[in-house]
C-alpha cells in the first residue's frame, strides 16, 4: 500500500512540474526561442552546478555519518581480517580525497566559466607537462596500491598446510549448507556426488569403503575453535554457490565438479563478539527495529518477530535459484574445549548410515 501511495504522489508531483513547464513555455512563446541556452540559462545552471556539488558532499557526509559505522570495517573476526580492513581504509581515503577534489574542480569550473555573450574561451589545446603530471600521479598511487594489495592477497590465499589446520568441508546444495569434519584423523574421506545414496542417508556422497570417511562428521552448523587455522574445502552438488562469511572477510565459490578452498583463523568467539560495545549497540538497534516491526503483526494477532541475537553467518552469495535469499548456516566460534565437547556429541558417518 505504501508503494502505491508513493507512486500516486510521485505521479501528481510530476504532473504539477509538467504543467508548470507548459505555462513557462507558453509565457515565453512570443520570444524567439531557439531552444539553445541563453545567458540566463547558463547562469541558472551554473548555480545549480554549485548546488549539485553541495548535494554530492552532503550525501557523502550523511552516508558516512549514518551508515559509515560500517559493521564490517572494524569488527573482523579472523586473523587476516585487519589487513583487508586496513587496505580498505587506505583505498577509501585515497578515493575520498580524489573524489572531493575532482568533483570540486568539475562543478566549480562549470560554475565559474559559465557562458556569456561576447566572451571568448581560451584556446588551450595541449600541455604535455600537465598531462604528464596527471599520468604519473595515478601511476605512483596505483603502484603502491597494487603492491600492497597483491601482498595481502598472496598472504590470504597462500594456505600453509604445515601448521596443521582443521580441515572442514563446506557442502552446498539448493538451498542449504552442510559442514563435514574429518573426525579424529582430521582427514576427509573421499566423496563424489555420484555416490550419494539417499536411502542409506549418505547425503554427501561419501565413499563408504574409504577408511578415512568412517569417522567423518556431518553437521548443519559450523563450529570452529578460536585461534586455530581452518582450511575449508568447498563442494557443490548442483549449481554454483558462494560461501560468504563476511565477518571473517572470507568468500569462495562452490563449484560442481571441483573442490575449491579458502583458509583463515577465527580470532573472536561468538560470545566475545556479542559483548563488544559496537555489537551490543547494533543488536539493540536491530531489536528496536524488530519491536517496531512487530507492532502491526501483534495488531493482527500474529506472533511478534523473534528478538535478535548476534551469530556469525555463512551466506550464499552466488545466485543459485529461487530460495537463494535464504541459504544460510550459523557459524559458532568457541573455545577449544567447547568445540571438543560439541564435536563429540555429533554422529560419525559410519553410525549415521541407514542399513
Amino acid at each position, binding site marked *: 500500500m505504501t508503494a502505491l501511495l508513493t507512486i500516486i504522489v510521485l505521479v501528481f508531483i510530476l504532473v504539477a512540474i509538467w504543467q508548470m513547464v507548459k505555462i513557462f513555455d507558453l509565457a515565453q512563446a512570443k520570444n524567439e526561442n531557439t531552444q539553445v541556452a541563453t545567458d540566463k540559462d547558463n547562469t541558472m545552471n551554473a548555480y545549480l552546478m554549485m548546488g549539485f556539488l553541495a548535494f554530492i558532499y552532503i550525501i557523502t557526509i550523511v552516508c558516512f555519518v549514518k551508515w559509515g559505522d560500517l559493521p564490517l570495517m572494524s569488527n573482523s573476526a579472523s586473523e587476516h581480517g585487519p589487513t583487508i580492513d586496513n587496505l580498505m581504509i587506505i583505498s577509501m581515503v585515497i578515493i575520498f580525497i580524489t573524489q572531493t577534489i575532482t568533483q570540486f574542480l568539475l562543478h566549480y*569550473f562549470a560554475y565559474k566559466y559559465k557562458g556569456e555573450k561576447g566572451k571568448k574561451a581560451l584556446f588551450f589545446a595541449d600541455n604535455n607537462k600537465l598531462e604528464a603530471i596527471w599520468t604519473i600521479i595515478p601511476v605512483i598511487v596505483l603502484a603502491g596500491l597494487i603492491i600492497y594489495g597483491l601482498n595481502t592477497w598472496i598472504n590470504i590465499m597462500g594456505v600453509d598446510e604445515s601448521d596443521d589446520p582443521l580441515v572442514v568441508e563446506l557442502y552446498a546444495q539448493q538451498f542449504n549448507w552442510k559442514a563435514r569434519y574429518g573426525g579424529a584423523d582430521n582427514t576427509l574421506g573421499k566423496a563424489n556426488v555420484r555416490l550419494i545414496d539417499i536411502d542409506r542417508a549418505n547425503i554427501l556422497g561419501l565413499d563408504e569403503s574409504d577408511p578415512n570417511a568412517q569417522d567423518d562428521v556431518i553437521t548443519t552448523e559450523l563450529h570452529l575453535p578460536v585461534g586455530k587455522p581452518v582450511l575449508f574445502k568447498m563442494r557443490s552438488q548442483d549449481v554454483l554457490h558462494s560461501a560468504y562469511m563476511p565477518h571473517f572477510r572470507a568468500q569462495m565459490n562452490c563449484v560442481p565438479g571441483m573442490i575449491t578452498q579458502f583458509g583463515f583463523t577465527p580470532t573472536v568467539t561468538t560470545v566475545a563478539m556479542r559483548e563488544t560495545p559496537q555489537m551490543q549497540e547494533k543488536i539493540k538497534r536491530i531489536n528496536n527495529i524488530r519491536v517496531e516491526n512487530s507492532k502491526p503483526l501483534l495488531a493482527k494477532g500474529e506472533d511478534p518477530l523473534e528478538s535478535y541475537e548476534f551469530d556469525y553467518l555463512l551466506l550464499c552469495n552466488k545466485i543459485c535459484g529461487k530460495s537463494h535469499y535464504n541459504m544460510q548456516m550459523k557459524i559458532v566460534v568457541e573455545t577449544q574445549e567447547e568445540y571438543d565437547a560439541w564435536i563429540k556429541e555429533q554422529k560419525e558417518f559410519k553410525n549415521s548410515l541407514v542399513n
Partner: protein
Amino acid sequence: MSAHADTHDHDDDHGHHHKETFVTKYIFSQDHKMIAKQYLITGTIMGVIGVLMSMMFRMQIAWPEEPNVLFEALLGKWAPDGVMDADIYLALVTIHGTIMVFFVLTAGLSGTFSNLLIPLQIGARDMASGFLNMVSYWLFFLSSIIMVISLFVEAGPAAAGWTIYPPLSALPMAQGGSGMGMTLWLVSMAIFIASSLLGSLNYIVTVINLRTKGMSMTRLPLTIWAFFVTAVIGVVSFPVLLSAALLLIMDRSFGTSFFLSDIFIQGEVLHYQGGSPVLFEHLFWFLGHPEVYIVILPAMGLVSEIMASNSRKPIFGYRAMIASILAIAFLSTIVWGHHMFISGMNPFLGSVFTFTTLLIAIPSAVKAFNWITTLWKGNLQMNPAMLFSIGFVSTFITGGLTGIILGDSALDINVHDTYFVVAHFHLVMGISALYGMFAGIYHWYPKMFGRMLNKNLGYIHFWITAVCAYGVFFPMHFIGMAGLPRRYYTNSNFPLFDDLANVNVIITIFALIGGVVQIVYLYNFFSSIFFGKKAVQNPWKSTTLEWTAPVEHMHGNWPGDIPHVHRWAYDYSKPGHDVDFVPQNIPLKDGEEELQH
C-alpha cells in the same frame, strides 16, 4: 554495396533520386540516418521495459512481500494477490541487466550514434554497405522481439542473472527460468551478436575507407575514434560470447559436458562429466568485461565532442584522448579475470588480473582530468547536452574510483557480489553511459529529426535524474560494505541486515522518482518530432562536418560535393578568427598554422 558510398572521388551525380516508397524509406531503409533513428527508437522502447523492471524489483526490495497492485497488473500469475514471486524477482533482475547492457547501452547507444555520425562526420555519403547496415538493424530488431517474447514463457523468463552462469542456466530442474525462457534468451543473444558483428564490421570499414579528402586519422572527431575502437573491441570479443552461448546450447540440448560435471539434483545424478562452469565464466567475461567498454567508450566519445563544442574550446589533449582510448581498449581485453577472483581460479592468476585491472585506472584518470581541463577558462553553454556531459564526468569519477577497491583481489573477497558492486557498475557504466546517450540525443536531435528538443524540459530531466542517480547509488555502496548480497529476493530472513532496511527504502524512493521523471524526457522526445521548434543547420555552432549537411535529410547526405577537410575538429575560439568556431571544411587562412596536435 550502396551506390551512394562513393568516396574520395566525389562524383558529381548528386541527384540520387530513387523512387522511395514508405517501406524503403521508413522500414527497410538502407540510409544510415534512418537506421540510426530505428536503433534509437527500438532502444528507447527496450529501455522503458528495462527501467520498469528495475522499478518493480526495487519496490520488492524496499517493501518485501507486500501486496502491490502494480505487480498484480503487470506480472499477472507471477504476483498472486499482488505479492511478487521469488522466481520472477530473479527473472526481472536478469532481464533488466540483459536489456540495459545489450539492447539499450550497446545497440541503442552505439548503434544509434555510430550509424548517425560515422558517415556524417567523416564525410561519406553512407556506410560502406547500406545493405549490411539494414540487415544489422533488423537482426537487432528480431533479437529484441525474441527477448520480449521470452518474458511470456509458461515457466518464466531466464532468471539466472544476466551472466547466466551454468549449471543454474543449464538445468531446467534447477530453476524454472532455465527451460524455454533460457533457450529464447540464448537464441536472442546469438542473433544480437550477429547483428552487432555486422554493424561493427561496417563501422570499421567505413572509417578506414570512406573518409573525405583531408580527413586524416588525426583530424577525426573523438566520437569517430571512440566508435571505431568500440567496433574493433566488439569484433574481437563478441564472437567469444557467441561460442559460449553455442556451447551452452549444446550442453542444454545435446547432452555435451562443456560446462557441467558431477551434478546431483532432485534425487538423481546427471550424466555430465568433465566440464567446468569456470570455463564458462572465462568465456563469458572475455566478452563481458570488454562489453562495459563497448558501452562506455561511445559515451566518452560523445561527451568529448559535446564538451568541446559547448565549452567553445578545443578538447584538451586530443592525442592523449586517443591514446587513452587505445590503452583502455587494449587493457579491456586482459582484465576479465577480476570478475572471477573467488571463482576457484588459481590465486596467482588473480594477482595478474589485479595488476592489469588497476592499470586501467591510469588512462581513465587521464581522460577525466582532460575533460575537467576542457572546461577550464571556457565559455560554457549550458545546453541540456552539456549538462549531461558534465554529469557523465561526475558519475564516471564517482563510480570509477570504487573500481580500485573491486579490482583489488584482496578487497574483492569481501565485497564481491554485494551491493557495493551493484553501486559501482551502475554509476560507472550504467548511469554514465546513459548520460552519454542522453547527451548525444539532446545534441544531435536537430540532426536526426530537424527539430529542437525543448530545453526547459531538458533541464528538468537532467537535474532530477542527476539527484536521483546519486540518491540511488551512493547509499548503495554502504549497504554493500555492510555485507548485503545482491540478488536477494528479501533480506527479512537475516535480522543481521534489519538496520539496512530503511536505506533500501530511501534508495527505492529515489529510483521511483528517477524512473518516473523519464516520462518528461519521453514526452519531450516524441512530441518534439512533430511539434518541436524547427532546427537551423548548425544550432550549436559546431565545427564537425555533420552540421554542414542540410537539415532536411537526403540520401547521400550532401547536395553536391562532399566537403573537404582542412583542419582538425576542435578549432573553437581559435585566435585570429572573428567567430568562435571554424568548421573543418574551412581552408586555413594564409599564414594560419594547423596545430601539431
